[in-house]
């Protein structure tokens, strides 16, 4: 049953060193605030899962929280590389990280299998590609009726899944809309889960068949206004494309990155302070 608590409490109680953690979000509703809190609390040796690791994973990796990354597309969408991810993979800085690489369809199937408590996900994919040579977790099975060859991926079962959504009610039921990605599956596949929301309201006023996560499948719900910045929350604020572009320069060099993360994340107590600190820096620039 979801407790409605602060994000720092939620991360402290829910994320442990060595955990497998999925901070999911498909360009929309990316849980940046939660990622920053993991960095502040200096969680270590995490295996992080995400279809599209972007800036928040670049930050987690650069900050040394990550031992292994499981993913299917790692980049700064429309801008270019994730320099901290590349520096870790190419040069082992700040530490060597292990990578487990999939295609999107395989990641989606693995989350769905986890949500359904199936041991593996099945898809018509991977055939003839080099990913199969480097990822031992991709196997093939034969259809018992047609003999057709199908790919099999072990279910994702994160220790903790963390997502950001638009609304929760005072019981902790969560509503999200727009590009909803694989977040529902990621939450239902996990042992524990945290949802940060833009606001907590008396009545969700959820339209019929909308994406609602009942409080009783969640561990914690935290109100974090703007918690998806620089990603967006449909109905609340737009994606800060300028920040995504600016990140390229910040993350390119280790020193610039260390300065930025030290000043704006480690040097602040919470996400509200982070955004003030960032605005201050930008206005002085």
């Amino acid at each position: 049953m979801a407790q409605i608590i602060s994000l720092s409490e939620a991360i402290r109680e829910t994320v442990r060193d060595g955990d497998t953690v999925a901070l999911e979000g498909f360009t929309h509703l990316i849980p940046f605030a939660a990622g920053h809190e993991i960095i502040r609390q200096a969680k270590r040796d995490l295996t992080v899962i995400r279809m599209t690791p972007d800036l928040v994973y670049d930050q987690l990796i650069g900050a040394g929280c990550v031992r292994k990354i499981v993913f299917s597309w790692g980049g700064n969408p429309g801008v270019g590389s994730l320099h901290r991810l590349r520096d870790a993979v190419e040069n082992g800085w700040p530490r060597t990280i292990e990578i487990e690489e999939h295609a999107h369809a395989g990641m989606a199937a693995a989350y769905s299998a986890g949500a359904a408590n199936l041991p593996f996900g099945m898809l018509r994919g991977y055939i003839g590609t080099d990913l199969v040579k480097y990822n031992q977790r991709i196997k093939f099975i034969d259809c018992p009726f047609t003999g057709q060859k199908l790919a099999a991926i072990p279910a994702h079962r994160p220790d903790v899944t963390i997502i950001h959504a638009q609304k929760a009610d005072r019981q902790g039921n969560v509503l999200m809309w727009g590009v909803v990605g694989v977040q529902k599956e990621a939450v239902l596949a996990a042992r524990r889960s945290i949802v940060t929301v833009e606001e907590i309201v008396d009545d969700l006023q959820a339209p019929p068949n909308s994406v609602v996560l009942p409080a009783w499948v969640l561990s914690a719900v935290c109100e974090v206004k703007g918690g998806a910045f620089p990603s967006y929350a449909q109905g609340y604020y737009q994606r800060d494309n300028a920040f995504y572009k600016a990140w390229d320069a910040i993350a390119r060099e280790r020193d610039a990155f260390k300065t930025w993360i030290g000043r704006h994340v480690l040097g602040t107590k919470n996400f509200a302070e982070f955004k003030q600190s960032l605005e201050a820096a930008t206005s002085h620039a």
Partner: protein
Amino acid sequence: MPDAGYTSDEMMTIAAARMIRDGVTLFVGIGLPSAAANLARLTHAPNTVLIYESGTIGAKPSVLPLSIGDGELSETADAVVSIPEIFSYWLQAGRIGLGFLGAAQIDKYANINSTVIGGYNKPKVRLPGAGGAQEIAAFCGEVLITLRHNNRAFVNKLDFLTSGGYFEGGDSRQKLGLPGKGPTNVITDLGILTPDPVTKELTLTSLHPGITAEQAVAATGWPLKVAAKLDTTAPPSPDELRTLRDLNERTARAHAGQA
């Protein structure tokens, strides 16, 4: 060639856009494919159904999304579904007529690499990876590929086979049981390559205005076959150019504006 009144990237995008038949269902990657797809929608193919892997079906963006999940896409879409659904019920199901991909490397059988340059375990350059490209390449009715034409991109051997075109050529794609027809056109900043009907080897079949076959051959990392009858791509029409530049301008304004 600034003197031509348009850039080679504009020619590439416009040549790619022309290949989109009106009314087709089109699975779009980000970047150049998205620009070409939306240019087509704003010119000769208004009924194109744009599908992005973020789960947006029938998106009608007024500016180009910087990411495949921009709000612009979901707010203008006919339907927005989950990621597991878009990959299983829509792409894998074989419902999508045309796929549109970019790439870092391509080989003579139109197999593409968007994973690593150099060795996988100690890469020279770590690229973003497969994303949805494998499934787009495997399951769309046919595939268009667009990338800039040079020796680093057009290689004799891929560093990594991310997404399959015609694999070893001939009937090797069908032998693997991939349902889609595979890549039917590769559109570059120099010209257009199409697979040989039998061997499936990419052949230069059209040159953009002012480009010579020698330039294309020199920019290709394998001995590029050149068609006996070599077409010249029609230059951008004023309408195509105006529409593309307006779109890019709107997009630049929109992306800069959001801070």
